[in-house]
């Protein structure tokens, strides 16, 4: 699956890139909300992992933009607990909210859910 990973912290990007690529997905990286929207515009993804707190454009704003671009695109927000912004994101149509630091299994669980729902649609 084509997955977009957006986080301002390089180690998160690096980790997710390695793990997801190892799992067999095609991973694109973004550093902030603006890059996230650009990527969504230019490519089609199956899932987006997006951090909430980012410079220039945060996750919530990016989510709103992405939603208007691709209403069906699954977006999983990542944040530190507790976070009001993340709760708001949920209300805006985020698939789920992951609290950092997360287990790798949580990531994979979300991916499996998205894959199975895509299959269902098909």
């Amino acid at each position, binding site marked *: 699956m084509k997955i977009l990973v957006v986080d301002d912290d390089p180690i998160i990007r*690096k980790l997710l890139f390695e793990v997801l690529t190892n799992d067999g997905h095609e991973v694109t990286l973004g550093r902030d909300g603006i890059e996230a929207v650009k990527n969504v515009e230019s490519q089609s993804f199956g899932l987006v992992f997006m951090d909430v707190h980012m410079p220039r454009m945060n996750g919530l704003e990016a989510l709103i933009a992405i939603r208007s671009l691709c209403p069906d695109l699954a977006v999983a927000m990542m944040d530190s607990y507790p976070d009001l912004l993340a709760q708001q994101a949920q209300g805006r149509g985020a698939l789920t909210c992951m609290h950092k630091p997360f287990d790798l299994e949580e990531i994979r669980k979300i991916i499996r859910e998205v894959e199975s729902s895509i299959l269902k649609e098909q």
Partner: protein
Amino acid sequence: MTLRLRHLPMGLKTKFVLTISFLILVTSVILSVFLIEKQSRLIQRELEKRGESMARNLAHNSEYGVLVESEPLLSNLMEGLFLEEEVVHVAISNRKGTLLADWGRTEEYHRMYRERSYSPSAGPPGQAVLKRYFVAHGMEFYSFTCPIRTTRVERSKEEVGILDDKKDPTAREEIIGTASVGLSLQNMRSEIADMTRIVVLLTVLVVAVGILLAVFLVNIFVRPVKRLVYATERVASGNLSQMVNVTTKDEIGTLASSFNRMIVSLQESRDKIEEYNRTLERKVRERTAELEKTNRELESALKTLKETQVQLIQVEKMAAVGQLAAGVAHELNNPLGGILGYSQFALEKINQKPFSQFGREDTADFLQYLRDIEQQTKRCRSIIQNLLKFSRSSRKEEFEPTDLNQVVNETLTFTRHQVERSKVKLVQNLEEDLPLITGHVSQLQQVFTNLILNAVQAMPQGGTLTISTAVYRDKDEIHVSFADTGEGIPKENLDKIFEPFFSTKRVGEGTGLGLSVSYGLIRNHGGEIKVTSEKGQGSVFTVILPVSQEKATAESGRQGHQVSSG
């Protein structure tokens, strides 16, 4: 009633007694003198009358004897007079002055008379008796001389004795001689003397009795006055208990009853005053007790207030710390994510392929995972260290020479992340060689943190935060300003923002205490915070602090150089 009064030498009693005595004396003396005088004259007059009468009678009776010049006749007539004790001589002379008959009680009288014979030729008409005063040999006497008269008528012998001579128109009075009687004044004198003595004695008696009476009466009259005086002395010495017992119906009585009324009214006044006094004392006690109670309440309120203030500062600090902690927690989650992720990834790798089958690439990957883990762990450490720096520095509670630039930089080390991830650009204009101020480092850090975070929150869309430090030498001030490019603060809120609990944020987002606590902390440093703002353009918060008066250098500043708290 015993009157224990000091004796007044010129007191009422003395005055009255002296006056009355004087009056009595004077009157008595005058009266007695008058009396004596009168009596004397009376006695004298009596004597004169007697003398005159004797002389007259003798003259009258001697008419025949003189006419016939019969000495025995005349002597006979005179005899009667010798019996009178006071008669000292009698003499009858004829017209020519020849003694027809004379008698004297003593030889001296004889002589005396003879030496001064009376010539009857020039004599007063009528019944006038001549009185003459003689003093001889220490004896006084009067001599009364009366002319002897006869009536010559032109008539025959036969008519003599039958017809009344006096009715005869041819009657002519003629003086034929004199009769004189001498009366000793001795009797008179002694009578006068006796009388005088009696009168004087009487006077003395009267005066004495009068004085005694006066003393007695004055005593009686003055007694009420003395009682009054005594009473006033009692009152003067503070004793209002007894009244004056004087009930005479005169002015003293009136005075006494007025005095008694006065005492009563005085006593009432005194009682009233004492009453007021007691009331006053009671009120003062009550009021004092109230005041003490209020004082205690105020003291305890003050204590509570101070404690609350300390707590609030702590709360703010904790909130700041909390905010930082939230930021730091945020911070930690990423490296922890890396550590957890790579640890799990490495474990998965081992599960898939045991170590023994590791190729070079696998080993290299594995080592990289470990290095990443190590790196992220170090990152965690430094984040935590920064946080501890903030809380550790707050344990230093003293005021010391402080370099504000250093404080700004330290504050930025743990707020920089939050600033930058909020898309806020940070600009620093720190003046070099800033003079030191006497400051409390952790408090200043707290204030600067508060202002920085406020600025960041004012720019949710991002913007620029400019932190500047500058010294104003003419005013001995250092200005640290935090300028944002946010929405600005409405004019009507500008002076409210430093009020406690004033907040434009929603419930749950911030306590509203930050600025008020910061304001208080800066006031504690002897400075103030000023704010200017333009709607739509941003706000500038300027912290103004006085330059330290101590001549400490920047290097020694941070080594705990003790300064008396300013």
